[in-house]
């Protein structure tokens, strides 16, 4: 329970103390792009600290996804749950984390509509810092979700052949791609008028992208046109790369594909986002 407090009745503006803070108001050197972004990342962490409930969607949701799909498809698709888990886990980790990226767009939308962004935009700092910092905060959420899924997987019998290194590299690759993919949502967050429409567009993009891929089944049994889609779908490549790393059979081609597409996503959607942000 929080209460409103008010010190208004006891406060009298005093010239000496105000003059003292005004006199000490020289600006130190302008912060670098990096330290400005880190400061905004700190802001994101503070928000999580004050409202820890917002971590619910990166813990409960991934657990649900993992349990649901492991037991739903395990028996039918691979003969046994444990066997299917070896195939599914990297995929379900990718699906969950990529789905969580949409909250970046929704969160940014609500944030930017508040007055505080006016202040940020009048500061003499590197312009993308506020957005980069916000996504830094979201990276923590991605790592949390990935870790939760890994833990659930290990309990259920996931035994990755790539060992600790392979799993960590796979998760790192996933986080890199998710950071890049977030810029799609920041763009929509700035482009669309309401939070609901950001949510709607996110669903429309994310469902086909995650389900029409190699997350749940190998695309071999799909009709030709669908196979074409799954092959150009970046999620397919990301899942293949993560699976390779985690199972101890890294596929350099797929890893390169993921890194290049991450760079392309940032170049295109980062630029569009910044153009919209500056125009707002």
């Amino acid at each position, binding site marked *: 329970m*929080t*209460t*409103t*407090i*008010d*010190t*208004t*009745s*006891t*406060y*009298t*503006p*005093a*010239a000496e*103390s*105000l*003059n*003292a*803070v*005004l*006199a*000490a*108001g*020289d*600006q*130190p*050197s*302008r*912060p670098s792009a990096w*330290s*400005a972004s880190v*400061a*905004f990342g*700190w*802001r994101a962490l*503070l*928000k999580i600290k*004050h*409202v820890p409930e917002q971590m619910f969607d990166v813990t409960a949701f991934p657990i649900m996804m993992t349990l649901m799909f492991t037991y739903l498809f395990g028996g039918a698709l691979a003969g046994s749950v444990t066997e299917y888990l070896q195939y599914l886990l990297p995929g379900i980790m990718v699906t969950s984390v990529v789905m969580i990226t949409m909250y970046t767009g929704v969160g940014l939308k609500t944030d930017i509509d*508040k*007055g*505080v962004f*006016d*202040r*940020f*935009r*009048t*500061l*003499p*700092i590197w312009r993308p*810092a506020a957005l980069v910092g916000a996504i830094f905060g979201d990276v923590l959420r991605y790592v949390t979700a990935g870790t939760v899924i890994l833990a659930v997987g290990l309990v259920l019998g996931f035994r990755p052949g790539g060992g600790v290194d392979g799993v960590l590299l796979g998760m790192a690759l996933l986080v890199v791609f998710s950071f890049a993919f977030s810029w799609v949502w920041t763009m929509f967050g700035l482009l669309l008028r309401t939070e609901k429409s950001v949510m709607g567009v996110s669903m429309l993009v994310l469902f086909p992208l995650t389900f029409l891929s190699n997350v749940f089944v190998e695309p071999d049994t799909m009709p030709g046109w669908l196979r074409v889609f799954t092959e150009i779908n970046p999620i397919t490549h990301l899942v293949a790369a993560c699976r390779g790393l985690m199972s101890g059979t890294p596929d350099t081609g797929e890893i390169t594909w993921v890194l290049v597409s991450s760079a392309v996503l940032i170049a295109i959607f980062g630029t569009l986002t910044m153009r919209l942000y500056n*125009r707002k």
Partner: protein
Amino acid sequence: MSELAIETVGLVKVFGDNRAVDGIDLAVPAGTVYGVLGPNGAGKTTAVRMLATLLRPDGGEARVFGHDVRREPDAVRQRVALTGQYASVDEDLSGAENLTLLARLLGHRKPTARTRAADLLAAFGLTDAADRLVKNYSGGMRRRLDIAASIIRTPDVLFLDEPTTGLDPRSRNQVWDIVRIIVAQGTTVLLTTQYLDEADQLASRIAVIDRGKVIAEGTPGQLKASVGAGAVHVRLRDASQRHEALTVLRTVLGGNVQPDPDPVALTAQLSGEDSDRVAAEQASRALAELAAAGITVDNFALGQPTLDEVFLALTDKEVAA
């Protein structure tokens, strides 16, 4: 003429078919408080947002200490700070965190940012509330935090967009005192307001804005004089004496005396020059004459012209011209 802190020539901003700012010329001398007065929707906030580099002008020029807002936005940002109509602080963080974050964004390292935040909180009477989330602050505290955030780095120009709208009288007086102290230290303040009273209290010059245009500009005294020196409101004990009172007041004060809808009340516009003393003299003479004529006055008030009166008078002039 001293150095200009803000200068705009023919500033224009169009939203769709709405010319929100339609050719505004301003010249704000450095080190003063300049009031931009106008009703809601007049274009005040839009003009301030252009000057603070939040909106790109669609036409005209705007410079802050010689730096063009369009071509050198970063140079402008180095010199300005904005306290918006809607508190520009982060509701989801504490007061201390808000100021520490902004201090870091201005280049302080974390320990010095913390010290700076603590000093500012103390100067603004917010030390006890430092660790509370801003969403639990009262309106007055939030506005103080907002102004504190604007002076983490002492700005050359401070934009205050309707700084006292929605505040109780005590908080409003605190904001006024703070503004006076900040200006005394050399910061130029551009203040937008809907209240003539506020502009009168703080500003050395005022621009009156309506529908995106400046319809009058001058010192508060000049503006008030342009609509007369104010009005005398008289309440009689006996409605039957009103006709006689009307005649007395017309003789003393000149033609412009009107009965009010209330049958015992009447209002006389004063025609004096721009000095309040002259208005007071006229009013006391009127009171003496009423007493001499045996008219009982229950209540008597000397009113300054209100924004409504200034505003209506100015817009009428516009239509007539």
